[in-house]
Each structure stands twice: as structure tokens, then as C-alpha cells.
């Protein structure tokens, strides 16, 4: 469908009325963290080194004014130029985290896509009790990642007491899920896929249902084989929604933190740590606010670059994401 933008004439204030509330709310929440992030990433601010005065009293705007003054003072007194970025260049933990992020995004997500595509195709068949399957297959997406981490990552994948341990014991194998970095990352990919597949599946299912049925009929009459029909017609028609789903998943996979935090805590060592987790641990747990903020800024730029590259290269083909 053609983009109908501009087809409805309206006064300036009316147009503003539609977009402004969402814009202002987002702006109010996001502007401070953004400015804070850019400035603080050039400081050596540590939690115990620089303290703030805390919630003042009086009208909220005055309090926010106080906060801005407090923070500017803190930034000025801890300014250390590009030291943080120099340190990052030699930081092995940062490099491992970056590598893991890329693995989660570019190995984990295609995996999710393949399984989800298979499931969507299954669910699009003429099957009995379709509604039942659709609801059940959606379930993993409804569970809190934190609960998934504990219940699956810890309790189910327990090398001694989990259900697989029993089978392994019968077979006289010693099970270990997270004793090496490779295994830890692999299992985390599996757990996060279990959680994410339903989301991709639903999007693909929507894509399949939106397809005009005549295409398949026409293909049949032409005598084209099923496989050809699938590849040529379905896959091509599904491409926009596929790419959209994949890009959305890559964005979410970049932000992945709770499952990893619970299941391995990034371990053994740093081996399964992602940037989100590293930032959280270094900034929130260890209190290295300056360095963690610098990490966050680099991470943000990195994500934006990757996503923009994806949008530029495949952007034409995808469902209008923006």
C-alpha cells in the first residue's frame, strides 16, 4: 500500500496533537540519560568517590535544577578526557563481551529464525486443534526472563539434579553445562532462543496469513513442486516480515541481560558476558560509573551502527520499520 502520509489535511496544532504527547514523554525520560551518558563517559566518576546530595525538597523543577548543578560539579571534578576510551582498547573483558554480543545476535538470531519459520509453516497448515498449538507455542514468550533463567538455566540444566542428569547417569556420562565459555554461551543461546522463538513465529505466521491464497493455487496449477512453490513464492513474499523480525530480534538480543545474569553471571570468568551485563556489573555493582558509562556509549554507538548498516543494506526489502 502506498504511504498515505499527507493525504489528510490538518492544521499544524492538530498534527502536533497526535505526535507531541508521545514525543514529549519519550524526550523527558530519555534526554537526561543521553546528555548524562555523553558527558560522564569522559570522567573517572566512581560511586564512592563522588557523592550527590540526594533528593532535595521543594518544587520538582528546583530539585531538578539542583541535580543538574550537582552533577555538573561532579563531572567537572572527575573529568579525565579520553582515558576511559584508551583503557577500553586494552580491556579484554570488553572485547570478550563485544564478541559474545555478536555471537548472540548473528548466530543466535538466525537459529531462532529457522526454527520459528518451521513452526510458522506448521501452524499455517490445515491442522486439527490449531488454536491449541498456537497458544501453547506462544507460552515461552510469556514467562519472565528472570524466571526462565532460574527455572531452566539453573534448575533444569543442573548437572547433578536436573532431568538431564538422570538420563546422563543412566548412560554413565558426566554432564556439565557451563564449565567452559563455549558451552556456557551455547546453552545461553539455546535458552534465549526458547524464549524468543514464539515472537518470531507469531510475526512470520502473521506474514503467512497475510499472503493471498491464490498464489499457491496458481503455483499448483502450473505444476510447480511444493518445494519450488515454497522457496520461490513463500520465502520471497515472507522476506519483508522475516527481515523485520530478524532485525527486531537482533536489537533485543543486543540488550540481552537478565537471562545471562541469572544463569552464568557472565562466567566462567568473563567468558559468557555480554556488554549489557558488563556495563551493569561494572557500573551498578562495582560503582565505576565513569568507565561503565563510557562502555555504554560505545555500546550504543556500536548497536546503532550495526542496526543502521542492516537497515541500509536490506532496508528496501523490509517491512517499513521506520
Amino acid at each position, binding site marked *: 500500500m502506498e504511504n498515505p502520509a499527507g493525504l489528510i489535511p490538518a492544521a499544524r496544532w492538530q498534527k502536533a496533537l497526535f505526535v507531541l504527547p508521545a514525543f514529549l514523554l519519550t524526550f523527558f525520560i530519555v534526554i537526561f540519560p543521553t546528555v548524562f551518558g555523553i558527558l560522564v563517559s569522559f570522567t573517572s566518576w*566512581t*560511586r*564512592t*568517590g*563522588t*557523592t*550527590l*546530595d*540526594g*533528593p532535595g525538597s521543594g518544587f520538582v523543577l528546583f530539585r531538578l535544577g539542583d541535580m543538574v548543578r550537582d552533577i555538573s560539579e561532579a563531572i567537572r571534578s572527575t573529568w579525565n578526557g579520553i582515558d576511559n576510551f584508551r583503557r577500553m582498547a586494552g580491556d*579484554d*573483558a570488553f572485547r570478550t563481551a563485544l564478541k559474545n554480543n555478536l555471537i548472540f545476535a548473528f548466530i543466535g538470531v538466525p537459529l531462532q529464525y529457522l526454527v520459528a519459520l518451521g513452526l510458522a509453516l506448521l501452524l499455517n497448515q490445515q491442522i486439527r486443534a490449531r488454536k491449541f498449538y498456537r497458544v501453547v507455542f506462544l507460552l515461552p514468550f510469556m514467562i519472565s526472563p528472570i524466571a526462565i533463567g532460574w527455572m531452566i538455566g539453573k534448575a533444569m540444566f*543442573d*548437572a*547433578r*539434579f536436573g532431568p538431564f542428569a538422570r538420563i546422563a547417569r543412566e548412560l554413565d556420562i*558426566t*554432564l*556439565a*553445562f*557451563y*564449565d567452559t*565459555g563455549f558451552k*556456557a554461551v551455547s546453552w545461553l543461546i539455546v535458552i534465549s532462543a526458547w524464549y524468543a522463538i514464539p515472537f518470531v513465529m507469531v510475526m512470520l505466521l502473521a506474514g503467512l496469513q497475510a499472503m493471498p491464497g491464490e498464489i499457491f493455487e496458481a503455483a499448483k496449477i502450473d505444476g510447480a513442486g511444493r518445494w519450488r512453490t515454497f522457496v520461490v513464492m513463500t520465502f520471497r513474499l515472507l522476506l519483508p516480515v522475516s527481515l523485520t523480525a530478524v532485525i527486531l530480534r537482533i536489537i533485543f538480543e543486543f540488550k540481552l541481560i537478565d537471562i545471562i545474569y541469572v*544463569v*552464568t*553471571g*557472565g*562466567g*566462567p*570468568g*568473563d*567468558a559468557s558476558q555480554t556488554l549489557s551485563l558488563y556495563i551493569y556489573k561494572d557500573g*551498578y*555493582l*562495582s*560503582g565505576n560509573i565513569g568507565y561503565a558509562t563510557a562502555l555504554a556509549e560505545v555500546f550504543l554507538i556500536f548497536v546503532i551502527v550495526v542496526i543502521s548498516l542492516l537497515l541500509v543494506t536490506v532496508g528496501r526489502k523490509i517491512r517499513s520499520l521506520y
Partner: protein
Amino acid sequence: MGGNAVASSFDPQPFRRRTNRRSIVKAAGAAAAASTLGLGTPLLRRAHAQESVKDQILAIPGPGAGAPSEADIERVGELSLNTDKQGAFEGQTVVFQGLSNAGFHVNVFRPISRAWEEATGATIEWIEVTQADSYPRMSQAFATGNVEFDIIEGSGGWEGEMLGGGYCVPMPDSVLNAPEYDYDDIVPYLQSPTRTWDGVTYGASVDGDMHHFNYRKDVFASEDLAAEWASSGGEGDFAPPTTWQQVQAYSQFFQGKTDPDGLPTYGILDPLARSGGVGTYFFFSRASSYAKHPDDPAFFFDPETMQSKINSPAFVRALQDMIDAIPGAPPDQQNADLLKTLGDFLAGTGTMAHWWADIGANEYASDQSVVQDKVGFSILPGSPDVYNYGTGEWDTIEGNNFAPYLAFLGWGLYVTTAGEERGVSEAAWDLVKHLSSKDISLWMNVYPSGMNPSRESHFNAADWTAGGYPEADAQEYLDSIADSYNHPNRIVDLRIPGQGEYWIAAEDEWTRAISGELSPQEAMDNAAARWEEITDRYGRDAQRELYTASL
């Protein structure tokens, strides 16, 4: 937000009242009932003069009754309540930040405080944090001036920040001199230096801490295993280890063996996963007898230069030991944090563990344990040689070097200056007095609560039989704790500012050696470098002064 109005409609008041009434009728009768109804009968203990409060509460729930229920704990709080502040804090809200439930800490404090709430008219709001979150959350609250809590359950190790930073108020005489608090009963190291700053007492101890050594008596009594040990060329008799070298040898030996119950045996359980810095306590108890020289009071730093000692050969050797013990540990030990380790040991996995006194506290009294009657206790293992930091040599010590580690220094309750500014410090201290009173403290030790011996009166083994502990076992358990507390070569844990940061930095690095990213020496060199940074940030001279004073 009008959240409160909605909250009250969800508040299951009828439920709570009913529980109380039932427990009251069971417990004590009219006097108790009157006090709950707010009629102002001041001291419950008067009504039961014939039987001491201590004996009464220790019988709740009694041996074989399983873990105490919510109503049981409420009754304990009810029976031991001794406040002259009837209705004095009507309308006040005291905010308490403590460790989240899992059946312990806040989940015990909360029901124990209920009678106090009803008697004084105050309301308590609880902020529950996990152990890994507890230090950062406190530190963040201080750093941003957002101190919501009036009482904080904190570690002795955090006192540099809490007390040195001026965030807490000294303990008033009304608590310090209260007979039911009985200050003189508290074990010496928790009277001072712990809980004090500049000679002034701030915190009330509810817990005492050290790492001691737990081992499976039944495994070390197995004749089959003893025979195998002898035939495999094991050195010495097959007996509970007393040195870390023996611990290492047994960890190797136990691989592929089975215990008397037919389950696979594993060696020592080191918690090897990161847990917000808490894992470092276990690393330090591994290093205790290698690094703590009897002639040198300093364990963590060189008191002259405030250089950290943690990359010295003693600590590197301890880290190497931990790596060497991995093959003898249960699978996935690299991903086991301290909680997993505790659960595993109580479930019969692993033959040796260095832990706080909680294993013993849970052995009998918790209905979650399968190791009743199977656990032996001693002070932390020693070593025939100890590293001499001054000469750079390993000195041989006749009869082995032992250095019990008073890790963490126990949970204490502290009242914040923010609480004082909000005008609730009187109520807060009255609550602290209730929670840390002698009777309640004993009860919390005997039953699983997360609290370990912190008073001389806790070391009376006869009291422990009330909770189902055989007296001989209790004696052995208590002796190992007392011997740790009183050992001439003990290591009193660090309590200078930044303790939490030092621990997290160390944990970040030593875990990298566990995963093989770094060699033990590299890892500890990194850790030492990070310690120098932290020391410089707080001021080397200031830190040195505080550290020297603590020795």
C-alpha cells in the same frame, strides 16, 4: 500515587489477626492476648516468671517439628517482647533494609517484629535485597543521598562506608545498657573493633561470622574408602584433613569413588562463580594459612606502604589450589556460587566445604537437610609452611600454621542518620533492641535464620538440644567456632572504606584464572593493581591509618 489506599484493600488484615489470635491462645493466654489488643500489659515475662522466656522460646517449635512456621516465629517475638514503649510510636513508619527472605533474615525478622509493631503502634516497611545486591544497593543509596532506610542490616566489613562515611548514628545508652541486650555477653571481637568507629559503638550484632571447615564424618569413617586410600598410596591415615595440602590430596582421591550411601563422592566445594564479590571470602579462606604469618598481624596489605599483598606467592598458591581442585568437584562447579555450594553440601554432594557456620546451623534444624549426623567441624585447615612477606621465603611452622578467617564480621543492625532526620530513630533503636536481644538472638541461632553465634551465651551446647541438635555434635560445632574467634593467629576481616569494592575487584580477577583466561599470577597481579587504584582513590594515607589501627 494513591498507591496506599489501594494497598490497604489488598492487605490481608483478617488473615493476620486470625493467625495472631490462634498463636496467642496456644501460647500464653490472657496476658498475651491483652497486650496484642493494646490494653497495655507491659512485660509478658512477668506472666511466666516460673518458666524463663529463653526456655519457652527454645521449645518453639521443638525437635522434629520441622522448620518453624510463621506463627511460631511470631510467638517467639511475642514472648520475648520487652518494651516500655507501649503505643509510643503510633503512626511512625520505620523502614528496614535487610536480606531477602528465602526463609531467613527478613523473613524471620518480620514475624518476630510483629508483636513489637502492635505494642508500639509503629509500622515497619521492609526493603528486601539479595545478598549479591545488598552492598551495591547500600553504596548507591549513600552515593546519591537516597537513604530511604532507617535501619540497615549490614556487614561489619561495610563499616568503613556506613560509619566512616557518617551515615549512621551511635547506639544510645538505652540500648547499650539494656539488660535484655546484654552488651557484655557479645563476643569480644564484635564488641570492638567491629560495630564501632573511633571508639564509639554504632551497630547491634545479630550475627557472628567466620569460615570454618565442614567435612562428612561418615565418608571419613568409611572403611572401604580407607582401604582404597591406603592401597592408592595415600599419605597418612584416612582421616579428616587438617591442612590444605591434605584437602587437595583428598579432592584428587575422591574422584570416581562412592560414599557409604552409594552416591559419588566429590572433593572440596569451592564456590567458583562470581557473586557480587562474596566469592572472595572463600578465596581468602583458601589463602588464610598460606598468607597469615603468625609474626605478622597484616593479611591484606603491607601496613607500611598500604601495598596489597594479594599477588604474593601465598595467594597465587591458594588460587592454584582452587584450580587444581576443580576435577574433584561436582560437574559445573565453575558455575556454582555460594548458595549452590551450601545447597549441594546439605544435599549430600561434596565431602568438604569451607563455609560460614550455616551448614551446621542447618544440619539438624532445617527440614531441608539430608546430612543429619554426618557433618564434622573444625577450624579452617592449616599448612606446614607459611609465606613470609618480609623475607619472601616460605617458613616452615612446627605443627602447621593455622589462621582462622573471621570472614564478613557478621550482620549487624545500624540506624541511619537519615532515619534520625526523619525523627524515627527512637523507634528504630527500640526495634533494634528487640531484634538483637539476648533471647531472640539465641533462638535465631538454634533455628535456621541465617544468624550464627555472636554472644558468649550462644556457646552453651545444652541449649542447642532444644532445636534437635545432639549435645556432642553441638559442642563440636560450637568449639570450632569459638576456636576460630579466639585463635591467636586469626584474621579479622577488612573493615576499611571500600571493602566491598576491593572484594568485587578481587573476585573479577581470580575468577578469570578459574576460567583459564589468565594465569593465577596474572590474575592476582591485575587484582593487586585494581586494589592500588581503590586505595589511591580513598587516599593511601587515610586507608593506611585505618588499616594499621585495625591490626
